[in-house]
């Protein structure tokens, strides 16, 4: 029998429907592969073999019933093993968000996005590694260890959803959920050579997502192709009464049969090709734009004048929101506790000892930006410049339907390469932050490999609620290219 873990999600789905193999067999194949490979990768922080096999047995019953009544509705995700980034709560599994301050926390409820996957019949294999509270671009900020890039174990997988990206790239699961506050899905997707979708702000419920920057946080997913990602997106998108910031519009249908991009206007913003970026990344992105053109899209030069301000705006707004969101971790209700004196001593010692260096840095930065005397100059000014960045996108999307640009200035960097220089690490996010500030969706997928054999990604962005157009364009590209089918040797 072929190695089931090499199948695409949709191939696995067809195999389950036909009865060629069972969800229990598929799940065992994933669990075996995790067992065999994850000691070297550390994509997972928690694996749930018994729970996964229990869900797989249930899915097999549903599939058996469906085979007797093939006209009845059945999700393409029924029986498919997936993974969940450890910033999303799943009842019965720990949720640590890469932090010691949440060590041993078992949330008593399940995030809406995960619940929708469970309701569709997926098998939840476990939780994937993340930078602490999703703050980082490499998973090096996880308190539980660094995830390794499956294409080169000496390099980072990107972050903060690096565990999910590495797990999908190395065939440990068929799809995975992640979160994206400043690029945390798109950047690891690019570094690991998988397809990653950051949804529009408000498109997917944040109920059960451990909060980082609440005006920027989005939930999305990873798969090995746009076609595989589509059912994940369609399942998790939509209004949730438990998150009043979710949008009510239904998820648009995507016609994957239509292979061309005729009539589509794609803009290429000149501000996204900067001095110092890796030549092979620029070449890969420009070649991908040629492919879009050959599929019938018209290509337009585009101007997003405030792009270079996105980084300072983000690194004031996100830390400010984080400093408020993370005030709740005080050693009273969850996690371990430090300190021997009064209540204030407990707060200071618990937070000082159990938050990692990057989280403390951002809490400090945010606290400063919000503090009396500095609010207007920092946080207030950042919110106003955010308006200008959003207007750039509003103007751009009056001229074009999609924006095509790089995801990152370079391919995956080495573990430890950015050392103790936070600003140089922040610069990794320069092309992904604007979408979060504007609230628009973005998709990243592989368009080639550099001389070291590392994946190069392209990013497409659309107006808010434009996920269908992103998935369609990525699928059209993947229908005439094979980059997304390359697999790391493990």
């Amino acid at each position, binding site marked *: 029998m072929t190695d089931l873990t090499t199948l695409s999600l949709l191939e696995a789905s067809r195999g389950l429907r036909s009865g060629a193999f069972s969800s229990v067999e598929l799940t065992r194949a994933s669990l075996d592969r995790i067992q065999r490979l994850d000691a070297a990768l550390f994509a997972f922080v928690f694996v749930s073999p018994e729970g996964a096999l229990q869900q797989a047995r249930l899915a097999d019953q549903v599939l058996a019933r469906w085979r007797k009544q093939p006209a009845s509705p059945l999700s393409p995700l029924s029986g498919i093993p997936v993974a969940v980034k450890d910033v999303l709560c799943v009842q019965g599994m720990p949720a640590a968000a890469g932090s010691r301050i949440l060590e041993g926390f078992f949330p008593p409820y399940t995030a809406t996005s995960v619940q929708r996957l469970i309701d569709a019949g997926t098998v939840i294999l476990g939780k994937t590694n993340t930078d602490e509270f999703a703050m980082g671009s490499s998973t090096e900020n996880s308190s539980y260890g660094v995830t390794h890039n499956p294409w080169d174990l000496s390099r980072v997988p990107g972050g903060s959803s690096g565990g999910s990206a590495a797990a999908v790239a190395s065939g440990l699961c068929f799809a995975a959920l992640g979160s994206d506050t400043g690029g945390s899905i798109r950047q690891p997707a690019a570094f690991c050579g998988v397809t990653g979708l950051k949804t529009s702000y408000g498109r997917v419920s944040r109920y059960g997502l451990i909060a980082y920057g609440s005006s920027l946080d989005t939930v999305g997913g990873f798969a090995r192709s746009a076609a595989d990602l589509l059912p994940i997106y369609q399942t998790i998108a939509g209004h949730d009464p438990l998150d009043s910031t979710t949008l009510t519009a239904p998820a648009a249908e995507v016609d994957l049969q239509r292979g061309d991009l005729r009539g589509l206007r794609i803009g290429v913003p000149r501000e996204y090709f900067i001095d110092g970026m890796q030549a092979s990344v620029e070449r890969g992105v420009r070649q991908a734009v040629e492919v879009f053109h050959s599929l019938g899209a018209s290509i337009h030069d585009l101007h997003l004048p405030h792009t270079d301000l996105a980084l*300072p*705006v983000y690194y004031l707004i996100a830390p400010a929101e984080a*400093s408020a969101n993370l005030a709740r971790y005080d*050693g009273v209700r969850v996690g371990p*506790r430090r300190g021997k004196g009064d209540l204030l001593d407990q707060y200071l010692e618990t937070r000082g000892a159990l938050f990692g260096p990057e989280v*403390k840095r951002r809490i400090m930065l945010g606290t400063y930006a919000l503090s009396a005397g500095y609010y207007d100059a920092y946080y207030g000014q950042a919110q106003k410049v955010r308006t200008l960045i959003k207007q750039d996108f509003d103007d751009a999307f009056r001229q074009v339907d999609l924006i095509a640009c790089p995801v990152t200035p370079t391919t995956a960097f080495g573990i430890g390469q950015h050392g103790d220089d936070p600003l140089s690490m922040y610069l990794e996010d320069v092309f992904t932050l604007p979408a979060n500030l504007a609230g628009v969706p973005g998709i990243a997928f592989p368009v080639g490999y550099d001389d070291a054999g590392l994946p190069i990604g392209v990013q497409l962005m659309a107006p808010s609620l434009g996920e269908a157009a992103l998935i369609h364009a990525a699928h059209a590209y993947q229908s005439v290219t094979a980059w997304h089918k390359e697999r790391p040797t493990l």
Partner: protein
Amino acid sequence: MALTIEEVRHIARLARLSLTADEEARYQVQLSAILDYAARLRAVDTSAIPPTASVLPLDAPLRPDEARPSAAGAQILAQAPEVTDGMFRIPPVFP
């Protein structure tokens, strides 16, 4: 703009973070560098620009205010480091 070590200590106190002397020195350098970088925002004329707090339209839908099941109290208390008589236990506010 360079932060003083006193400012670093003040921010840490506001943020309820105890820092070692080494951390204070490191954050003084790093936060100063990040704030220097952020200072470029001041050159932007925003006198006529409204702030963006959220990208969403201001019509967040409401749901009926109905009781629904939630986690049992015992389940929530079981996560806490210290519990007494069905309540979170904390050290004294005033020693």
